[in-house]
């Protein structure tokens, strides 16, 4: 099987303790043929970005339930740019108030997936964005 796989890194920044949702998404993406690197809980933006670089991922998926999504998205995007990895796409899922979405997108977040988003939607978005 010598073909290009889509690689996605899924991480939970900060102090969130619940990762069931993130794991469900991770497994869902695996089930549609992607390679998903799951880095687990309590990751700092530095750890997330450095891991994404080493793993040469196409997409970073942040899972944030704690409300600190704006901070983490901003920090991850900054670090990606700083390190010359601005080509990596950032998406975020979890508990994100809809009114925050425009601001996040303006920052550079490619898409926000609220609770209950079907995995197929996430997968399709990723496939489209990687093609570009």
């Amino acid at each position: 099987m010598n073909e290009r796989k889509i690689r996605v890194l899924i991480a939970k920044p900060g102090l969130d303790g619940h990762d069931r949702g993130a794991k469900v998404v991770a497994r869902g993406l695996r089930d549609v043929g992607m390679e998903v690197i799951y880095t687990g809980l309590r990751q700092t933006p530095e750890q997330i970005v450095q891991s994404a670089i080493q793993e040469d991922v196409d997409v970073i998926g942040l899972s944030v339930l704690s409300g600190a999504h704006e901070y983490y998205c901003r920090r991850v995007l900054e670090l990606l740019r700083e390190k010359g990895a601005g080509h990596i796409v950032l998406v975020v899922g979890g508990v994100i108030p809809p009114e925050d979405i425009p601001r996040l997108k303006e920052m550079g977040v490619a898409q926000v997936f609220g609770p209950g988003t079907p995995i197929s939607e996430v997968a399709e978005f990723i496939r489209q964005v990687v093609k570009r």
Partner: protein
Amino acid sequence: MKELLDRAISGDPIAIARVITLVENGEEYGIRLLQDLYPLTGKAHYIGVTGAPGVGKSTLIDKLIWHLRSRGEKVGVVAVDPSSPFTGGAFLGDRLRMQRHATDPGVFIRSMGSRGALGGLARATADVVKVLDACGFNFVIVETVGAGQNEVDIVKTADTVILVIVPGMGDEVQIIKAGIMEIGDIFVVNKSDKDGAQRLAKELEAWIEFGYEGSGWIPPVVMTIAEDGTGVDRLVSEIDRHRAYLNDSGELKRRREKRVMEEINVALGESIKRRIRDVLEDEVMQRYVSEVLEGRRDPYSVVEEILGKLTKGGV
């Protein structure tokens, strides 16, 4: 291409990661890169860590990294997890347990799916290890899927093979039956605070004494508790001792000879398959399939015919 390579060799993680991806995908470009990197390989000590799922390999490697870093070594890790044979996807969760090293520039961790390779260890893994070797990591640790017999593949790649088992899994009988024992240079009994650990270690030692009489290297049995790092310092000194043994006894040279032989054979097989795929048209293949199904010929003569065309210069 030269620029990408130069950046990788000088330690730029983005470049290293990109080279790994190209090499892993097995494309022409990746192979050219490998050719250029090859002269720079051979400096790293390759350690293979294998064992059943859940025995604590990742946690152990996390502690190993810590020890090696504290004496200034640069460590590369390749963590291989199974790819789904149906979807081709993979859930790569080994690095989770090593994440405290994620921002250490002296550590490079890469997760890989086995991508359908037999033997549990992706063909590409051996190539990825070479990339890390060439880019200055003096220890490269490969963690494999550990599903049982398939671990024999790792022997063809590693200098030192560490087999990790835990008490209470009925491991000892399984391992001895499967012949896996023969591939271990160092045996680790992890979760050694659990019941049965001492007994397991003694059984292992007895088996080793019986099986390795007269050998130059008698595999040691190291008891560890990877969770808190107990025993890992002893593991590191056994790794050092094995490395010294390999160098002093000439065994290293023998193993690397075997490795090169294997590499050439695998590359040859893949190259031939690729060439056939490139020139054998679907309709032609379909015709062969129909002929076999209709009983007009057998598959083996089909193969002979294809190979004959290949050597004559194209189908």
